């Protein structure tokens, strides 16, 4: 297949000689071995192919080969109208589809100079946070799977269904709601949804406690994650690592609080959790706290949900005036941004999609150097990427 594409390794000779020098017994020197993970491997969460060069059990160099899920969103966006694109971009990060729509719709609204009514903004915020819970919850379970604990994965899938049910009952779609319209939302919340949501949030909080009881403090889990895969904050930022991965490296930066105000976040009281360690454990811990924080935010939002219309007055045909806009939001996986260039037509002229996982994963060649093979899986698991978000 793509054997011509098999990456040539640009192994840093200095690094390699260090490793060789660290071997006490030269007779036990093992030759380099190239291990190919993927492109289809359960531990890679999809179709990431990882070519690692091993010296014994230690990784000398790693090269992720991406593009097995490249679908050409940026090109396809140029051939679609704005309402059609929201259908498409749902599928970038398929776990938090609703959160993908928000920045795009927000950008188009900015260009058109319209603003969604408050109730629509609040419901958008609720659904964004719900999709954050649905996304991260899967991570909380799967991280257990990476270190050999099967039970949390089942819990993750079980309780995630509750959140998906909420999203489905409000939007009609489990996965890809396509619920945002330019200028508001398609529909209001159904009757009884708020009470149902509160009940579910209680269950989610209890589920978070379960995860904490089982994993955090567990000797095996901590041994496999503490001190493994440390990302220095400054380097992580220069690589473009964002979201919980960066906050776990001690960088206190959350676009919900620090970015340009969007949705109902300025009116919410929430804490941005950080951790100073920067290792796999810190990433797990930060995400665990973020899930709880998201639950708190949803409850706040339900309490203060304003009444009113859910759709602003928009023209029947969406034509977006000429201009360019950069919109970014804090998505479950990190910074999601769209650079929309419009030329006054019914579709955008150019859409640059900045997806979080792409940059999060681009640090892997640096991060995997010198780690042991079993840790490769936990590090990749703790970075938590979605292949569609990498390859677009």
């Amino acid at each position, binding site marked *: 297949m793509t054997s011509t594409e098999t990456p040539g390794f640009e192994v840093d000779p200095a690094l390699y000689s260090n490793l060789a020098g660290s071997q006490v017994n030269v007779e036990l020197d093992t030759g380099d071995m190239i291990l190919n993970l993927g492109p289809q491997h359960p531990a890679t969460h999809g179709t990431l192919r990882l070519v690692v060069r091993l010296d014994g059990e230690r990784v000398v160099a790693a090269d992720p080969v991406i593009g097995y899920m490249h679908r050409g969103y940026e090109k396809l966006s140029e051939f679609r109208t704005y309402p059609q694109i929201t259908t498409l971009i749902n599928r970038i990060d398929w776990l938090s589809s609703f959160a993908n729509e928000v920045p795009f719709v927000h950008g188009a609204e900015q260009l058109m100079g319209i603003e969604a009514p408050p109730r629509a903004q609040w419901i958008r915020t609720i659904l964004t946070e719900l999709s954050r819970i649905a996304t991260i919850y899967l991570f909380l379970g799967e991280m257990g799977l990476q270190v050999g604990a099967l039970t949390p994965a089942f819990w993750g899938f079980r309780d995630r*269904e509750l959140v998906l049910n909420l999203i489905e009952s409000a939007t009609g779609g489990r996965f890809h709601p396509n619920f945002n319209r330019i200028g508001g939302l398609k529909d209001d919340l159904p009757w009884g949804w708020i009470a149902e949501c509160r009940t579910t949030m209680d269950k989610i909080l209890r589920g978070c406690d379960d995860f904490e009881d089982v994993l955090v403090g567990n000797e095996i889990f901590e041994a496999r994650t503490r001190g493994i895969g440390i990302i220095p904050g400054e380097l992580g930022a220069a690589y473009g690592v964002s979201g919980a991965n960066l906050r776990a490296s001690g960088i206190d930066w959350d676009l919900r609080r620090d970015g340009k105000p969007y949705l109902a976040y300025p009116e919410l009281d929430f804490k941005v959790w950080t951790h100073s360690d920067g290792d796999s454990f810190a990433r797990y811990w930060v995400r665990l706290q973020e899930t709880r924080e998201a639950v708190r935010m949803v409850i706040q939002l339900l309490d203060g949900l304003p009444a009113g219309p859910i759709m602003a007055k928009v023209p029947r045909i969406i034509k977006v005036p000429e201009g360019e806009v950069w919109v970014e939001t804090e998505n479950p996986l990190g910074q999601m941004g769209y650079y929309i260039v419009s030329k006054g037509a019914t579709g955008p002229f150019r859409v640059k999609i900045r997806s979080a996982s792409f940059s999060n994963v681009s640090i892997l060649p640096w991060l995997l150097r010198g780690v042991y093979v079993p840790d490769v899986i936990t590090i990749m698991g703790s970075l938590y990427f979605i292949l569609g978000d990498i390859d677009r």
Partner: protein
Amino acid sequence: MGLVEKGVFGKKPLKPVTWLLNYSRKYSLWMFQWGLACCAIEMGAALASPRYDMMRLGVIPFPASPRQADLVVISGTVTDKMAPAIKRLYEQMPDPKYVISMGSCANCGGPYWDSYSVTKGVDQVIPVDIYIPGCPPRPEALLEAIVMLQERIQNEGLGNDELAQRWRGEHVVVDNAYMAARV
């Protein structure tokens, strides 16, 4: 299996034998899950979530290798970069083998029908038995596809029946050209 391929005295095997064989086959489907995109999560939900619990249908997920699998579920967008890998793994599966194409992307390209990098349908690469529509299909849809496949397996004839072609598979002659295509 001589019974299956040749039949008994050149005739079809007796009906009870066929029934028993198919019955045991359909409830021990080793399923190789080829999760590619969004549908993979729904497939994961069908497999791993207690709500759907596919194993109760006699489907055994996570085989150690495609060489031990009876069924492959292609769930998600197949790209031109991925298609050779799918073909290669399909060839490694032993006959008889079944393919379920899950989701619009695997069926026909779906929302990416005009993309420059997406294969418009996995059936261009490997033969497909069951197509599941949806973007993504719900886990229940995958369960129904499994049930449909099981019905189909139950009704498969043996001996000289046409459906027995599947049992024989394709004879692969390993020569230089074959190897050259796989380097």
